[in-house]
């Protein structure tokens, strides 16, 4: 077997590992068969271990080749006329290090959650969703075409939603999950549309046809107008997943999910999926300076907004959610500035630190009590030096703005959500009247049902 062939197999294994684990732990509940906790954690852990070993092997082989990108064409999934959907994976300086880190984190969270969720109702469900997330994440990262990336993106979104609503017996969790899903779904339309525009422009969704050269030195092959449209659509998609203004309302509520999933989704991987998407398509952003500057503005704005709001949070997970949002905003701004290695390093370091903090958060109260006992009193909260420079009235106003989360949600609700819902309810009422008239049941009676 040649080195190229071995590398191809290793790349495929990075997706297959968690995918097979997903099938192994997902099928028994579907068929009504019981599943044992230990078996489930071992199966999912083995899937991640195989993927991690394959990623490490790929990294070594790539390094030996000077990080020249290696494309794995698994064939055409389906094609009709000129429309072709291919299964292409790519191993390069961006994807393989990212898989190493993301799969490693998934494996660690798998080990942690095996103990943390012991005897929890929905234990198996958690690991099924974790395996789905791992499969989706690796597919997203290794994608060589926007079609494959979209498939991974959707898996990440679905698993994220279902894990936010993991404790679905709590209405707050169900509401938070729905809110996250609505944001994802609206923003995913951007990625879907970007994929269609790419297909129309290049005849395929392959990144190779849109970007020449290897990451990080790629150049855009699209016309300036197409590049601008695709870049704006990709940014729109990334804003939802990364919890950026004006789509950030779902992120603090997402902490309703179990701690291990919060750590991996909103501290580490899911929140950076948007950043990864933009890093992968950095060359397209570079060819669309308007979009790039827009990204800088949104990223910087989100960072300021989240830092401000995070400062007044009274619960630890909420504080950590806003801290994640701040860093994600800075990372997007870095990408908008055209930097490539800095945001990648920032993503990895932030993800590792934040997931550790979130995983440790259940013990934080205990730690704080210990600290208070050692200090002989509670350590006081200290505002930053810049805030101390502000006059009292401005400080109070800023405090109110922060408490109201920058009025972001109320504005979105008032300007978008409420008018849409009012219109939809009016349409539904009208429908009931028409049905009443059609069925001879009387419009008033039908409308009142």
């Amino acid at each position, binding site marked *: 077997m040649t080195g190229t062939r071995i590398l191809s197999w290793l790349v495929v294994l990075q997706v297959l590992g968690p995918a097979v684990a997903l099938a192994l732990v997902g099928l028994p509940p*579907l068929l009504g068969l019981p599943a044992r906790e230990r078996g489930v954690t071992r199966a999912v852990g083995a899937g991640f271990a195989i993927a991690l070993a394959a990623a490490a092997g790929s990294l070594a082989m790539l390094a030996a080749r000077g990080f020249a990108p290696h494309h794995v064409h698994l064939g055409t*999934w389906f094609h009709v006329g*000129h*429309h072709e959907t291919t299964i292409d994976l790519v191993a390069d300086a961006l994807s393989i290090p990212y898989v190493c880190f993301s799969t490693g984190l998934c494996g660690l969270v798998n080990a942690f959650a095996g103990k943390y969720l012991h005897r929890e109702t929905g234990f198996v469900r958690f690991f099924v969703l974790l395996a789905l997330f791992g499969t989706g994440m690796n597919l997203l990262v290794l994608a060589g075409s926007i079609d494959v990336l979209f498939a991974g993106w959707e898996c990440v979104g679905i698993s994220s939603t279902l894990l936010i609503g993991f404790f*679905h017996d709590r209405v707050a969790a169900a509401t938070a999950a729905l809110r996250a899903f609505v944001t994802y779904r609206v923003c995913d339309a951007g990625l879907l549309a970007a994929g269609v525009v790419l297909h129309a422009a290049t005849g395929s969704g392959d990144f190779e046809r849109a970007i020449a050269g290897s990451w990080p030195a790629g150049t855009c092959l699209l016309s300036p107008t197409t590049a601008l449209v695709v870049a704006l659509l990709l940014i729109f998609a990334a804003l939802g997943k990364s919890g950026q203004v004006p789509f950030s309302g779902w992120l603090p509520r997402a902490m309703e999910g179990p701690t291990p999933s919060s750590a991996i989704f909103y501290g580490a991987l899911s929140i950076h999926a948007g950043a990864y998407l933009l890093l992968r398509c950095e060359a397209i952003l570079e060819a669309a300076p308007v979009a790039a500057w827009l990204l800088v503005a949104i990223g910087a704005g989100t960072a300021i907004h989240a830092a401000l709001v995070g400062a007044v949070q009274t619960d630890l997970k909420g504080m950590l959610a806003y801290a994640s949002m701040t860093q994600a905003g800075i990372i997007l701004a870095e990408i908008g500035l055209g930097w490539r290695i800095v945001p990648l390093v920032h993503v990895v370091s932030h993800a590792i630190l934040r997931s550790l903090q979130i995983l440790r958060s259940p013990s934080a109260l205990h730690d704080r009590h210990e600290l208070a006992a050692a200090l002989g009193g509670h350590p006081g909260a200290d505002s930053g030096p810049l805030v101390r420079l502000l006059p009292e009235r401005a400080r109070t106003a800023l405090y109110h703005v922060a408490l109201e989360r920058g009025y972001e949600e109320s504005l979105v609700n008032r300007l978008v959500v409420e008018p849409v*819902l009012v219109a939809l309810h009016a*349409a539904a009422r009208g429908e009931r009247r028409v049905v009443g008239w059609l069925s001879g049941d009387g419009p008033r009676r039908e409308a009142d049902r």
Partner: protein
Amino acid sequence: MNATDAILASLLAAIAVPAAGAVATRFTALQRSARAVAVVSAALAFFAACAAAWWWHQGDGGAIARGPVAAGGAALVFDGLTALALPYAALVWLAIVVAAPKRALDGESVPRLLAGEAATLALLATAHPGLLVLLWIASIVPTVLSLRATPGGLPAARAYGRAMAAAVVCLAVGCLLIVRDPPWRPGHGLVGDAGGWLVAVAVMLRKGVFPLHSWYPALYSSGAYGTALAATMAHTAGATAIRLLVGHADGVAAELVFLAQAALVTTAYGAALAVVQRDLRGLVGTLAMSQSALVLAGLAGRLPTELCGALAVWISAGLSLTGIGLVAWAIESRAGSVPLDSHPGRADDAPALALFFLLFGLATLGLPGTLSFVADDLIVSGALDEQFHAGLLVILATVLAGIALVRGWFAIFGGPARVDRPRHPILPRERVVFTALLAILVVLGLWPGPLVASLERIAGTLLESRHDAAPPSLTHGAPAP
């Protein structure tokens, strides 16, 4: 016996078996074993339909036409459309009769259900305008009777009956005009055009296309799920549109384009309505209206991608919505009506049904690895390639349908569990049906190549027929009138 004979024999068996089952359960002592007869008849019809489709795929892909011909349509036709739609419709019926709650299949309801199946399968295998009108009536009457027999179903029976009566009148007059002045002949006059438009209106009524759609949610609100699914999931109006409207001399007929635009609006509008429904029946009804209109939206496409997408949606939306409807039926048969504003926490007492509802929901909204992902990809690409606004409407509908489904899932299954409530385990026959439907959606989603190639061939035939200015049933070796 050659392949053509085998196809025709299998086709006739697929139609005759449920018809015989309907007669047997209505007039003989088999009434007491109505459920068993229904399952056996539906299973035999399904296998016969699959056999016919298999034989057809082994051949050269040409259309087989037999019997009298009017306006270019033969009484008995087996072409790509039949090969796709016949096994699909038979599978929908089989799923309904196997998964239906016990009390829903008695000596009264089974004859109606099987008669409806026989009429629908026959309808999918004819292109003769006169027969199409008769079979429309034959497939509508059992639904009206079933609705009338359902407690509280009279208003829905009235709404459905009135809409369908108008549809049949439009179709009958339209067919008369089409026979007199076939609109695909060069130099056709206003009579042919009027006929085409009347057929389009009939299709809009039958399919529940905006603004003639209001009976659709009413049917799901008041009728049994089995009745509603059988009446809507076979896509008979789509098949009729292909038989009668495709093939105009001037390319795609204006009425077909209008139909497609209206269907696109229905797709988005239905999904939007689904977001604010107050009960499970309303949710399933509006989603079914939205997704099945998507089939019609792609049928007027000028690109194989869009047509292929429409045919893929035919199967994916049909099977996943059938699954959702059957799961909803199972929940309601155990726990009564399900509101969407109270978070009753059904996941605790019906965990398996919650799982299947979720999976069918994900299969409807385009989860990667399911057929709907492929179908959405094709139809969005085709629609955006052809008309930008069409693509945007499809994307909007996909977004809204997803939101409606996830909201529905959390509203039904989320909320505090109550320890004093009875548990509702899934029945083995329900598990078999749900798992089989899911397996089909997943297998075709993971390996869509053969299906898409087959759909492309069918789409090519439909597009060719437009370019050749001849109706589809005569394009591949059918005898001349």
